[in-house]
């Protein structure tokens, strides 16, 4: 469990593959199409940014890719497993063992200390000595002195660093980040994204990030644009290809 085997990219299918993803939500007397026929492949170890305006459907896409929700049509494969064929518990198992999350609003539990927040996924995954690993990670993100502080006692940047430590705690193979700097000022955002990228490199994680920040997106190997539920990947010249 501790050490996920990471075979070489050539011999393996892509880490993430979305086929004809469509997602609709039913409103009172109407259906709203949020995503329309999205196709996407992301390889192991790649870093990918999905850029789009508010309401373009990017967070929904992230949720579907991460298995937090199931699409109306189409399928998602994560590390070889077809998410839509898994039960809720199997999806949870998948998330616990292979997926990490960073949210725009940090999503730390207010009652828990920084240390306890980071320990949470380790405890869920049943990984031995969660406290030791959580301490190491918090030290790695520069919060070694703030272990017993609760989210309230931490600044926004610090909270997001706790969230990043939590995301990497269970050594995920893929990390999903939803506007990780969206609630932070420029300088803090910069520091947080540096940290995110650095950890990502160190651990060889696949990174899928949703953002409307072009600078942050530019730090990823690939960028996709999403608009009105449609995904496009610009080519080297910046022109959209389907």
């Amino acid at each position: 469990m501790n050490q996920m085997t990471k075979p070489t990219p050539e011999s393996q299918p892509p880490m993430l593959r979305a086929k004809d993803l469509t997602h609709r939500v039913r409103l009172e007397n109407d259906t709203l199409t949020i995503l329309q026929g999205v196709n996407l492949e992301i390889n192991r170890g790649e870093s990918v940014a999905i850029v789009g305006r508010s309401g373009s459907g990017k967070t929904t896409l992230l949720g579907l890719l991460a298995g937090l929700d199931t699409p109306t049509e189409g399928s998602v494969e994560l590390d070889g497993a077809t998410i839509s064929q898994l039960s809720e518990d199997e999806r949870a198992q998948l998330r616990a063992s292979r997926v990490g999350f960073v949210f725009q609003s940090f999503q730390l539990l207010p009652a828990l200390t920084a240390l306890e927040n980071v320990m949470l996924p380790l405890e869920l995954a049943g990984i031995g000595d969660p406290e030791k690993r959580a301490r190491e990670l918090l030290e790695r993100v520069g919060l070694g002195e703030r272990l017993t502080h609760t989210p309230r006692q931490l600044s926004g940047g610090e909270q997001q660093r706790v969230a990043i430590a939590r995301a990497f705690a269970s050594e995920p193979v893929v990390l999903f980040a939803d506007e990780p700097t969206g609630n932070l000022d420029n300088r803090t955002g910069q520091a947080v994204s540096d940290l995110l990228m650095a950890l990502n490199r160190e651990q060889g994680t696949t990174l899928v990030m949703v953002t409307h920040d072009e600078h942050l997106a530019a730090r990823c190997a690939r960028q996709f644009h999403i608009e009105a539920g449609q995904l496009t990947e610009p080519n080297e010249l910046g022109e959209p290809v389907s």
Partner: protein
Amino acid sequence: MAAEQKLMSVRRDWRERDVRVVLAALVIAVATVATIALFASQLQRTLVTSASSFLAADRQLEAENGRPIPDSWLQEADARGLETGQMVEFSTMVFGGEGFQLVSVKAVSNEYPLRGEIEVQEGPDSPRQLVSSGPGPGEVWINPRLLRLLELEIGDSLEVGNLELTVSGLLIREPDGGFRLSALAPRVMMHKDDVPSTGVVQEGSRVEFVYLFAGEEAALEGYYEWLQPQLEPSHEWEGVRDGETFSRSLQRAERFLLLGGSLAVLLAAVAVAVASRQYALSQRDTVALLKTLGLNGAGIGRLYLRRLLLWGVTGIVGGLLVALPLFWLLASMLSDVLERPVDISLDPAALAPALLTALVSLFAFAYPPIRRLRNVPAMRVLRSQPGESGREAWPDMLVAIVAIFGLVWLYAGELALVVSLLGGLVLLLAALGLLGWGMVTVLRRVRGGGNAWRLALVGLYRHRNASLSQIAVFAMTLMLAATLVLVRTSLLDDWQAQLPDDAPNHFLINIAPDTVDEVAGFWEGQGQPLEELYPMVRGRLTELNGQPVKEAVSKDERIGALNRELNLTWMDSLPEDNEIVEGQWFADGDQDGVSVEAELAGRLGLQLGDELTFTIGSEKVTETVTSIRTVQWDSMKPNFYMAFPPGGGLEGLPATWITSFYLPPEKNTALNDFSRQFPTVSVLEIDHIISRIQEIVQQVTRAIEAILALILAAALVVMAAVVSATLRDRQREGALLRTLGGRQSLLVRSTMLEFAVLGGFAGLLGVVAAEAAVYALQFRMFEGSFSWHWQVIIPIPLISAIVLSLFGRWQLRPVLSVSPMLLLRRLE
């Protein structure tokens, strides 16, 4: 100002869950307190009327000396606006039909009875009916047994002394058929005006004149104050509350109702406190926003104060809308039980406690956290500020606790009740402190894993503050509810135990010493063995430590026992239902000393070693108090204020024997044989007294059940308040746990386990605290004896654990049914 008003709307408030809980708590508080107060006042009036009818009046004055009281005494009563009536009671032989019989005559004036009704039959097979006056002149009503004994028929004539009267009815039940010793032989009721013509009552004959009084309580008290200095020792003034048998049931019922009301107040206050604190927390963003829009602290204060008042009015109106129909329902149930119409009336004064409860709950519990809203900084709009630590709420808590216990005190009028409940709560808090400390030290070592148990324990540790306050509220709720259940159970058990189905319903009195064995043999032969037989000597307590007793005892003490002859007895072993509270029971062979009933000893201020002198006929007997014992007056067995050892002070004095026994109704005819065989033994039938007591018990039981239901509703509101207070946090946590890969089943199991542990602890603490409170209450208020109630100590924590874990499961519902994605967005 206009903006402030626009911000206020009950409809908008209603959408807030916390406001709904506050309103529900207020409605229940007002409804419970109002219903209880209204019903208690109704019940009390009914019971007093019902019990008054035992005297056929509110007060009786008995003259045992064979002389009527001066006319001026009755004129004074008239002048004070009291109704009066008269009775003359004597025993005589009557002749009729085939023979003669010793009877007990009660001759009544037109006014009799002032309270209650007489139950009569026109013939042996006619329906029974209730009438409100006795037989007219020239008529006589007789006991059905006498009809059989003399083989009479309705319309026959019966000779009483020189007068011939017509038997015009059968006397089934008289309202004042108590334990009067002169009322021994079969009863004959006639008109008082006929008495002189009988020639039976002459100077020196053994006659009792009884005077009835009814009217306003104040007028009765005033009259007694006027009368008291003129009373002679042979005069006995009796009121309902002096009646040993009934006043106890009555007092306990009243106290229970008040206890129930007090608990409802406490529970509702807790619900209001929890919900309004939660409401205040949820309003902080709004307040910050209003401040940035230019509203100042004072404006915020006004805004929320007005909102609070609006809730108050809504709560009071809603509560009364619930209380009134409930009261009518209970009151009409009461009249069903009594099988007679009850005069239902609303006592406006009874509504005061309900209004006071609403106001105190609002201002002592809801206002403080809401008042602090004005201190929320506008900066909060930009940057989330640390929330309340809870420490600033302590002074408010103290004020609130004082306020609420003050209210309970005012309401129940019993310091003992307040002290008992407060004691239980202090114990609870101490136990909680200990539990908190234990939780922190023990649970800190637990490390989570995939295991639901460990996750649950880690969860408890993480939410230690929330967990402890939840345990506190649940435990308090359970304590209050358990207290009520325990008191109710022991109250009903006590009554049941005192009046089992085969409780003695007949007394045999005046058994001559040489026929004791024969009498016992007769009933043995009938398959109805007698209870213990006791010798009885009539005597008066005249001196206390050599001083005349009336001087030795403060004049303020109205002690019926001093105004009349006491039944004295000797016995070698203590009756089963008596209990020695001080001193020692007579050892074998002891011939000295006297054992005194505890309550009388208390009122006379008697101590072990005091010397009592009794006047028995022309003899004086002096003995030292060697023990003080309690007596079950309502056991329907012979009971004695004074007991001597065999061969002691009463040795050689003329005694007759007394006993009681149960005779099933179908064997009633055996009484006729018995009366023929033992004409001098008097039979006292007390079936109707027993059925009266059972009626009272039944009324109170109904009321108790209804109140218990209200209290449980209040407890549910408290639970809802507490649950709603943590709902959001728990849902967020659940959503996050699922996002981070927690399986649903793990989440469900760990949450249920966490709540089960919470519920188990709360249940245990609640029950122990309830036992402590009940111990104090039993001891001080209900005069019962205390024992551990294993029947609740084990199931309540268990049930509480199960219920709370289901509650926890229920809380998780939205977390499980929605995709984690949606949930996180929704909770953001």
